[in-house]
């Protein structure tokens, strides 16, 4: 088929819409930024799209709890359309604040329950943290993390500490819904240790998917790790590559997450 149509949501303090849209487009998607209100008003119909991306940002300033107010706006006005979309052969990705929104909505981890079962609470250090981390893609049905291995990618959030009950956690593990874990540079688990696990997340969880693998939420920002020159360590790597007479790579690790989404519709 032609390029999948990607709806990148914006409005109310979402602020990673432009780079997320650019990343999908650069990966081959037909991506457009659409304001929440244009979906609520019916000017844009979710049903006309293949991918829904809820980007990072500070929707409603994180007031009353991150993701909560935007999730309420979507739930109050678009509930059926959202679940209809998510139930079809479509992809949904929520990045950072978008991940918080998807969990508040209950689209993750189990859309069939329509209830929030996991939370992303204040970081262990109770402070916003912007840093690059290593993550390991786990064995999961997640479409977005196929073949990813260990990746380097930035986080930037104040409320990213993955939290849930033991039963939910066990069920998610059993269903292979833990798609991405914070890791040490060698790919072994971060073991809860700062700064490899940047927020104190339970079981080093950085990203999860629903059982089908089509709905994915993660705290790190793949759109900020799209090209090589976005990497935090590019100057050192470039120096070594140049010394060896080798060319600089074009991409960083996040690019493959977008490429995977586009490839799904190929």
């Amino acid at each position, binding site marked *: 088929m032609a390029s999948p149509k990607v709806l990148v949501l914006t409005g109310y303090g979402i602020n990673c819409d432009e780079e997320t849209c650019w990343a999908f487009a650069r990966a081959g998607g037909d991506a457009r930024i659409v304001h929440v209100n244009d979906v609520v008003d019916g000017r844009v119909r979710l049903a006309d799209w293949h991918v829904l991306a809820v980007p990072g940002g500070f929707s409603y300033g994180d007031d*009353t709890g991150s993701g909560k107010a935007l999730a309420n706006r979507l739930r109050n006005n678009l509930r059926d359309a959202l679940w209809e979309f998510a139930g079809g052969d479509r992809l949904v990705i929520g990045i950072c604040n978008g991940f918080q929104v998807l969990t508040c909505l209950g689209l993750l981890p189990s859309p069939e329950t329509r209830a929030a079962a996991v939370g992303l609470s204040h970081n262990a250090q109770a402070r916003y943290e912007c840093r690059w981390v290593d993550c390991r893609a786990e064995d999961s049905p997640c479409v977005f993390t196929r073949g990813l291995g260990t990746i380097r990618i930035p986080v930037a959030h104040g409320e990213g500490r993955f939290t849930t009950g033991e039963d939910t956690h066990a069920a998610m593990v059993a269903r292979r819904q833990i798609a991405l874990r914070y890791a040490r540079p060698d790919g072994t688990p971060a073991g809860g240790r700062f700064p490899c696990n940047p927020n104190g997340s339970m079981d080093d969880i950085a990203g999860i998917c629903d059982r089908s693998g089509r709905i994915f939420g993660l705290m790190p920002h793949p759109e900020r790790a799209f090209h090589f020159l976005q990497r935090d360590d590019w100057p050192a790597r470039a120096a070594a590559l140049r010394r060896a007479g080798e060319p600089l790579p074009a991409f960083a690790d996040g690019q493959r997450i977008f490429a995977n989404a586009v490839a799904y519709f190929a």
Partner: protein
Amino acid sequence: MAHRIYVRAAGADTRARVRKAAIARLFPGAAVRDLWLVDNYTIAGDLTPEACERVRAMLTHPVIEEGAADRPLLPARFEYSFEIAFLPGVTDNAGRTAREAIGDLLKAPFAPGEDAYSSQTTFLAGRLARAEVEAIAGAFANPLIHHIEIRSAEEWRAGAAAPYVPRVTLPEPAEVCAVDLDIPEDALLRLGREGIAGPGGGRRGPLALDRESLLAIREYFRRCGRMPTDVELESIAQTWSEHCKHTIFAAALDELEDGLYKTYIKGATAKIRAAKAGGDFCVSVFRDNSGAIAFDDEYLVTDKVETHNSPCALDPFGGAITGIVGVNRDAIGCGLGAKPIANRYGFCFAPPDDDRPLFRDEECRQPLLSPRRIMDGVIEGVNVGGNCSGIPTPQGFVCFDPRYRGKPLVFVGTVGLMPRTSAGRPSHRKAARPGDVIVMAGGRVGRDGIHGATFSSEALSAGSPAAAVQIGDPITQKKLSDAIVKEARDAGLYHSITDNGAGGLSCSVAEMARECGGCVVELDRVPLKYPGLEPWQIWISESQERMTLAVPPDRLDAFTDLMARRGVETAAIGRFEASGRCRVSWRGAVVMDVDLDFLHDGLPRKTLASKAPPRPAPDEPDALPDDLGAALLGVMARPNVASYAFISRQYDHEVQGGAVLKPLAGAGEVNARATVMRPLPDRPRGIVLSQALFPSYGDLDPYAMAACAVDAAVRQAIAAGGTLDRLALLDNTCWCSPYEPERLWQLKEAIRACHDFAVAFGTPFISGKDSMFNDFAGFAPGGAPVAISVPPTILISSLGVVDDVARCVSLDFKAPGDLVYVLGATRAELGGSEFLAWWGAARRGRPYAGSVAPLPSARSMSLYRAYERAVAAGLVTSAEAPGQGGLGVALARQAVAGGLGCTVDLAALPEAGRLTDAELLFSETPGRIVCTVAPGAREAFEACLRGEDAVCAGRVTEGDVAVMRGAAAVACASVARLAEAYRRTFEGF
């Protein structure tokens, strides 16, 4: 009645843990055993129990929180609680979000008088006295903006109190009054000083009009044959304020008939642009909210740096968030509107351990906030303002001096990007046209910011809004900003736009009215936060998050409709016209009608004279330390040198995806002196930013202080890969007691240096701002007067365009074996250095000032050019522009960043024979770059630098940082120890 929803963490509450740790630090004696936080949402309005429960469910996350409606969530065992709520009228962002969300949930908007408010209750367990709890609460609340309620467990058990509802209630506004200026001179001067008399006999707050200004106003209204209204007088006072008109920079000074600004700042730019001719990259300088330079054929980049000093002294969080969100509007209001793409910050504080108590009043009832509290609050304010707005904050610094105790300096800047043309128009030009509708967009108007920092105690009475202190609302502004720069601008829906900052509508509308020649405004149409504002208050209120636009009548519906769909409130409040007058009406009556020419140009120009102060006596140590390795470790830990990664990490510097050279360099995470970003991901072009200031040199030589700031701002950008062909500067001057002739002399010297070195380097000023009254007159305990003035401070910021970001150079050492080059000459210039400050502090408890301040040389230009060629050829693997701490700190920073050592021989430096080891290692001589080059690139690099001061002084190693003189060790320290020293100072901040 009022309902209240209570929400608390269901599991471990990390915020509570952090608060408990803060109490333990601030009150080591307080026996706080445990601590819980509860967020309250108070809903002043009628809700059915069923609706109340729906609201509770909406505000409570079912997994990580628990909530209750109209039933307090009390811990099982506690002794006291304190609730911190906002005073009436203070911006309450969480309350606003709750109101919007509840309205959306119940599909019923709030009725007039109904509202939602947020507050937070801290429960404390432990053997605490009420007075202790009061002190603890006071450490987290600010009486200027907060209401505090302390309750004991017994009081809770006796029943929950009715929730505190900070509803604003104001009396019906008084009629507009005429103000008689034909009064005795002392009464006239008092009017200027203390303001118009209010109904109760008190004064409204200063007009800050001096004698000459008052006489000019009296003369104007005598000619008009009537008395001015209070609206007119307040409006003129705003427009003529030092803040808006920069009277000192504009005044004739000594032989400078045209004044400092025209002669030295604008003058420098004019000379540089003429000299660059075809290479002139300036597009819009000095005339708009930001300056603008060319980015490429299709885009412009804009920049502006502001200060927000006084508000941050009163309420550090509110002052800082308002400052950063406010300067964002200088981008949004530049030309037809630029998208903010980067924030910068610069914080000058007193040392955070300075705990001497000081008071604003003789009775010692109004304490100054502690330096640590100011520091924490300011850092947090820029955190929330920048992060919530989705604008990366790559660039910033901290600077410490005990003389910032009376007033901190808080610099905030915003870089913007806009297409050169928008809807077929050059985007840097704008002009309201007669007939255009005046539209106010964004936030509503309250009593915020009226008469700025002047604060009368009667303003704090119950029910009256706290007017002096504001809190920015980044989300309201984000919605406005997106709607303007991503949609309305390129749809061509308006002719002109400007920001509502100082002076509010009175300044923004009157300023735009100059573009077409007049305006008429109906104040009744301005949306208000609450009823009861007087017309003069509506006109001059500085309520935030507002832009004023000139919308052609045939686009008004399209504009209004677009804004409504984006959740942005707009109001048509009048029309631009060509009458030559600024006319304002309220309730059908004309309340202001003055000539625009008088309003803008009627201000009498001052004539000032300066006088050179006596030269300060040399303050040299009688002996220098034996162990320069220990000195290096000591200087690395100095607050002005140490890592402030804890700030860089809490400011999102990756959003928008453009960060290339980031604020923390290398695996060792060293704060970079320059940062580079790529604003358009498909283009190799980038923007380089840097900042520099050296207040410690000013006592010795203000000319050297400013010259060094210009040189360092330029050199840091060049070191990272910038080019003198496309590098612009911004100046921020923060002075004190500016009417003292000696201070004026220092100012004149400093601004003369700005001119000389900008011209020498061909780096034009494109924008600037001055803040002249950074003085504090207060009291020590017991009532003894204390006066503290900031050290004269000039911040120079640079903004440059680089052709290919992949060629930019970070500061971290890259590989063992790389050659270490020192470019530029070193001189014996230890005056004002961090080394002498450290040595003085270690030896006698206060810094040595030294005697010779570093002075740059215009000859550095050819060295910078040669270095540029080496970077363009890809020959440089790492680079650092030495600043505070000199060569020693530069090498240590590069080593820590790269996790590699170096061996450097001072004997290789040409000056080695004439200078002492300490001078070679710690002189802060400007004009130098330390860089590394791969061994294979040696010849090519040296060919680029031929004829310049450039010596290979050593190599990068896998060992220690070892500074030698021949075979003798001068200063050696392991990279690990240097890293520890560098990171220790602000650990736990």
